[in-house]
C-alpha cells in the first residue's frame, strides 16, 4: 500500500502558534541584547587577543599576552583588585544596613512620611556622574560646602581628595548615598508583604523589639536580602562614574578600581587590546565571585524555606 504524500498544509509545524507569538514578543528585546551586548562583548573579547591599538589597529594575534600582562601587573594585583573588593564589600554592606534602617522607619505611619520617602529616594533619580561631580565640589578644599561648614567650627582646610584613604572613603560614601535608596525601596516592599502571624506569636512570647527584628524579621527577609546583595555586588564590581569623576583613580592610582583600570588602558593609553583584556580579566574574576555569591543566595533560600 502506498502512502499518500502529506501536503504542506497538513505537515506538523515545528512551533505552535503560542510559541511563535512568544518568540515574536521577545524578538525586539533579543535583537537589542544581541546587537548591543552580545556582539560588542564578542568584539571586545576578540580585541583582547590582538595587538589592537586605537591609533593603529594592526589586529595581529598575540594570544594570551595581554592577559599575562594584566595578571602580572603589580598595580592590578596590589591596588586595583583590593580597592575593587573593598569598595564592593563596604558599599554593599553599608547600603544594606542604611537601607534596612530606612525601610523600617518608613514602614511606620507618621506625619510627613510620604515627603520623607520621596526625599530618601531622590539620590536614585540622579545620574551617578552628576552625584560624583556634586561630591567632588562639596569636598573641594577651597569652595566645598563641607570645607566651609568645618571652617565655621575652626577645622582647617583639608585636601580630602589628595590622600588615598580619605578620598577612597568619599568614593565609598558617595556610592552608599546613591544606592541606599535602592535597598530601601526593595526592603520596604518586602517588609510590607511579611505575614503578621509570626509577629503576633512573638508578641505573645513577650519578645523584645530587637529580638523580633533578629529572630523574625531578618530570617523572613533573608531571600530578598540575598538577591539584593547578589545584584548589587555584581553591579558594584563595575563601578566607574563615581571613581573617575571624584579622583580619576588618583592620587597616583591609589584609588583605581577595575573598571577605571580597563578604561585607562583602552582610552587614555589608547591600547584597546590591553583594555579589553583587563575587562576580560575582570569578567573572569566576577564570574567566580558571582558563582560563589549565587551559591550563598541559594543556601539562604533553602534555609528560609
Amino acid at each position, binding site marked *: 500500500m502506498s502512502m499518500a504524500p502529506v501536503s504542506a498544509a497538513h505537515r506538523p509545524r515545528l512551533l505552535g502558534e503560542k510559541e511563535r507569538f512568544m518568540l515574536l514578543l521577545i524578538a525586539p528585546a533579543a535583537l537589542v541584547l544581541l546587537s548591543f551586548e552580545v556582539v560588542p562583548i564578542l568584539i571586545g573579547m576578540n580585541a583582547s587577543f590582538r595587538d589592537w*591599538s*586605537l*591609533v*593603529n*589597529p594592526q589586529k595581529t594575534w598575540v594570544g594570551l599576552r595581554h592577559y599575562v600582562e594584566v595578571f602580572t601587573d603589580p598595580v592590578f594585583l596590589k591596588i586595583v583588585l583590593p580597592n575593587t573588593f573593598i569598595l564592593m564589600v563596604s558599599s554593599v554592606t553599608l547600603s544594606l544596613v542604611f537601607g534596612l534602617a530606612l525601610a523600617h522607619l518608613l514602614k511606620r505611619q507618621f506625619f510627613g512620611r510620604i515627603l520623607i520617602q520621596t526625599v530618601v529616594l531622590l539620590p536614585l533619580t540622579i545620574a551617578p556622574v552628576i552625584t560624583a561631580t556634586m561630591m567632588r565640589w562639596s569636598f*573641594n*578644599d*577651597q*569652595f566645598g560646602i563641607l570645607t566651609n561648614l568645618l571652617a565655621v567650627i575652626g577645622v582647617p*582646610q*583639608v*585636601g*580630602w*581628595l*589628595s*590622600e588615598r584613604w580619605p*578620598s577612597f572613603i568619599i568614593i565609598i560614601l558617595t556610592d552608599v548615598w546613591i544606592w541606599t535608596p535602592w535597598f530601601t525601596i526593595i526592603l520596604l516592599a518586602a517588609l510590607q508583604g511579611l505575614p503578621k502571624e509570626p509577629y503576633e506569636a512573638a508578641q505573645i512570647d513577650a519578645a523584645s523589639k530587637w529580638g523580633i527584628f533578629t529572630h523574625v524579621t531578618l530570617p523572613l527577609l533573608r531571600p530578598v536580602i540575598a538577591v539584593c546583595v547578589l545584584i548589587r555586588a555584581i553591579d558594584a564590581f563595575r563601578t566607574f562614574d563615581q571613581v573617575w569623576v571624584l*579622583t*580619576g583613580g*588618583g*592620587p*597616583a*592610582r*591609589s584609588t583605581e578600581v577595575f573598571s577605571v583600570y580597563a578604561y*585607562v588602558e*583602552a*582610552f*587614555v*593609553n*589608547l*591600547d584597546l587590546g590591553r583594555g579589553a583584556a583587563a575587562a576580560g580579566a575582570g569578567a573572569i574574576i566576577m564570574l567566580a565571585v558571582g558563582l560563589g555569591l549565587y551559591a550563598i543566595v541559594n543556601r539562604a533560600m533553602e534555609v528560609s524555606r
Partner: protein
Amino acid sequence: MSICKSLRLLAGLGLAAGLSALAPGAASAATDLTICYMNHPVQAANLAILEKWAKKQDINLTKTPMSYSIYLPKITQMLANNSTGQCDIIWHNDDWGQDWAQYLVSTDDIPEIKNVAEGQLEPFFNEKGQPTTVPMATTAGIFFYRTDLVSEAEVPKTWDDLVKVSQKLQKEGKVKWGYVGGMTFTNTFFSFWWSLWNNNCDVYAPAYERDNAVLSKNGWKPMTADACQVQTAEFWWDALHKNNISPPGMSTYSRDEANAIFQAGDAAFTVADSTLLGTYNDPKKSKAAGHVGMARFPQGPMSKEHRSWIDIWGWSIPKSVTPEKQKAAKALLGAMMTDYEGQIAQWEQTGGPPPNSKVWAMLDKSDPVWRQVKGILFDSAHVHDAYYFRNWAVVHKTYSDILIKAVTGAREDIPKVLTEGAPAIHQGAMR
C-alpha cells in the same frame, strides 16, 4: 470621487512631490561641514572667524563641541575606522601629531601655512614631511600675576622669590594663596613641567631633545631620578606642606579648580595658557580683571636660562572626508589663515597669539601687550610640551602618577619614589 478628479489629485500630488524634490536640490548648492572641537576660549574665538568665512563661502558649518576627556579617544577611533559623516574638520594638538598624521590630508597647499614660529609644524608632519594641520593659535603657558598686589619689580624671578613674595602677601592678608596651578594628569604643564623645564631638566635625557633618533641612541634615559627632578618635586612638596603657598588639595586640581581660585581673587600667581588672558580680564568672570600681568617663569636653582613652551593648536581634515568637502574645508581654513583682522580680534579677545606670524609684525607696531607676550614666549629658549612617539600618553600619565605620589608622600621619600618610578618612564617609551 470620479476618475477625473482622482487623476487630477494624483497629478497635483506628483507636481508637489516634484517641486519638493527640486527644493533641496536648490539648497544643496551650499556645502555642509561639521567641525569637532573643544569649547575653549581660543577655539571659540577662531570658530567665529571660520563662521564669518563660512557664510561668505556658502558653507553650512555645524559645530560639535566635545569635552577634553573624551576628545582624543573619540576622534582617534573615528580616524582609525575611516568613519565618514561625523567630523569634516577636527581640532588638532601637537601631542597627537604623530598618531594622527597617517589619517589626515596634507595642508601644505593652504595659503601662508608656513607662517609660524620655527619648528611648530614638525610635530604634525606626515611621512612625506608635509604638514597635516592649519594653525589656529599658538598655545603657550605663561606666568600670570596680580598687578594690584605685586609691582613689576617685585615679580618673582626665582623659586625662592616666589615663596618669599607669596608668604609676604599671605602674611599681610592680601591674598589667601601665593601660587595655584593644575597638577593632575594632562594639567602637568601648570605646575611640574614649567618648573622642571626651568630647572635645566626634562623627562628624558638629553634635556629638551625631541628627536626620537637621538633619544633612542641615548637609550631613552629618564631624568626622573636626577637632582634637578628631585629639586622640582621638593619645591612642590614644600609649596603644599611646608611653605603653604599653595592650597593643600592642589595635587587634585585640574586647570578648572586652579582657574576658579585665581579668578576668585584668592591667589597672586598662576601659570596657564596665555589664551586665558581674556577670561582672567573679563569682569563678569574674574575678580582679578584689570589687574592681570604676565612675566617669565621663576627659575629653579639649576636653571641656565628661561625656557617656554610654544606649540600650536590647529584644524585638520580627515582623509575619509569626500574630496568636495576637503576642498571646501581647505578654502575655509585658508580664508582664516589670511584673515589678519580676524586674527587680531582673536588675540585681543583671548590672548592667544595669532596663527599667522605675518600678523605678529602688525601687532609689533601697535600693541604693547603683544610685544610683552612675544618677548616672554618667543624671545626665549624653547621646549616642545610633548614627546612624539606612540606611547607618549602612557608616559605622560606614568610621569604624572610618580610626581603626585612624590608630593603627597613623605618629603624624605621623594628621591626613593622618583628612583623607583624611573624604570616605568624608560619602559613607557619601549612599550
